[in-house]
């Protein structure tokens, strides 16, 4: 099967669908871990778009961008999980609705 024949549009539609799912996940879900997974989904939607465009133009910048995004995402998750652990220790819950000690 020749993957080269898949039109760019398909990739972009998939990418947009992933991005929307991720955004909805962030907005609707209340579990901090699931929210982080949804953010990752959004980043990967952008990655997919980058790779698809890079193939379309035949230049490597898009592919390079994806490497950096993956590295940054890993760093972000490391920090995010550490913060979730710290929150769990003080609040014994990672439900974002419980995080309401700051308001006014």
């Amino acid at each position: 099967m020749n993957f080269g024949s898949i039109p760019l549009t398909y990739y972009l539609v998939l990418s947009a669908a992933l991005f929307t799912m991720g955004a909805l996940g962030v907005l609707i879900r209340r579990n901090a871990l699931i929210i982080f997974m949804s953010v990752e989904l959004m980043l990967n939607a952008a990655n997919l778009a980058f790779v698809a465009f890079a193939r379309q133009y035949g230049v490597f910048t898009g592919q390079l961008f994806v490497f950096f995004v993956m590295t940054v995402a890993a760093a972000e998750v490391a920090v995010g999980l550490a913060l979730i652990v710290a929150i769990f220790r003080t609040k014994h819950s990672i439900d974002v609705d419980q995080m309401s000690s700051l308001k006014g």
Partner: protein
Amino acid sequence: MTTILPILPELLLLALGILILTLDPFLKKDEARRPFLGWFTVASLLAALTVSLLLARPAGAALAFGGMIRFDWLGFLFKMFFLFAAAVTALLFMDADKLNRRAEAYFLLVAAALGMCLMASAADLVMLYLAIETTSIPLYILAGFLKTDDKSTESGFKYMLFGALTSAVLLYGFSLVYGFTGKTNLYELGLHFSNFNIVAIGVTFLILAGLAFKVSLFPFHFWAPDVYEGAPTPVAGFLSTASKAAGFAVLIRLFTAVFPVLNADWSLILAILATLTMTVGNLIALTQKSVKRMLAYSSIAHAGYAMIGVVAFSELGMASVVFYLIAYALTNLLAFGIVGIVGRAAGSDEFSAYNGLSRRSAGLGLAALVAFLSLAGMPPFVGFVSKFFVFAAAVQSGWVWLAIVGVLNSIVGLYYYLNVLKAVYLYRMENEDEDRHPVPVSRPAAIALVILVAGILLIGTLFGPWFGLATRAAAALF
């Protein structure tokens, strides 16, 4: 040597960060020598500032490192300013419990400053994304640094959550920009965005949303009060000043380089955003009981004032934004410094904690006078001159109504700033025994406050040369 000049400040910051972490194990056992870390960081940051000022001044505007960064006066001015703000924040760190003895806190501060320097000079989408993340990730950790404190972890987590979300939106915007042009360099992108179409609008909205979060523009401002309130006070000061300035540096570079033609249609949207940002920030600030939270809302309002200069979109407008950010940062660092000292002495950030402050510590009362009158935009402090330039730029570009909205908002702001001063100067403590409750000001904090007060008075009265620098930075944009 000439090839590394464009990133000399960043290289020095990197070396400093590594040095701090290397020194840390040697001091681990010796508690008495821990304050050395703070002094070392401050001294090194000031040394880096001096070296960069002497050696790394840009001659003109040129792309460097394969087009990744632009070596120009805008980036240079912001970099010098970030080094200064980091040094002052390090001084304030030394006064904050749990931050002052941890090498990690200083390292994260330096790392965030490094990211900001790159943000100010990034000329490529790849570099821009990495710079924004290099700034944000250390700041997430710093906001949640007090890990046994309920409020601090929640602040760090909220900042992280909204930050990650908006940077994903920003990144998606970047991927579409790349898709429609095939380029990632900002100065090449500009050519492709010369005709106005629906795609450009969508992409610009995504990118604007990402950057609006960084500078806390309405409707992406909601994170700021929670994060500032929960974060350690010096960190909140750094977040509300340097981080905001870095966001604005990116914003004005993007808008002048990539979307110059779109601007005619965007100005109105930005003007409405500026109006809403100022008004929402000021009105909610009126109802606050905590000075720290009030300052958070006031910092949202100040993002709105700075935005007026962006809307004006002239050379004067951009110069006034740069000048405004520097003026505002000096003032707000001072205000947060005072909040930190009072918060530590009184254990509270409520307005009532400030009662009789001028009798408890005359110097601190005077610093509060300078900080809050400057925030309110009173002459001869720098807040007045900076507001004047921003409004002048708006009027010059024909945005008279926006300037009027700005002036009206300043009046609202005056009320809540003076409320603080009322507590400081007119109110007494409960038993009128201020003599028995002195507010201790440690030496590093005193140095920081003196430097900031001097800066506010100096730039506020002799603003000519400083505005000249801002004009030079703005000229690099057009």
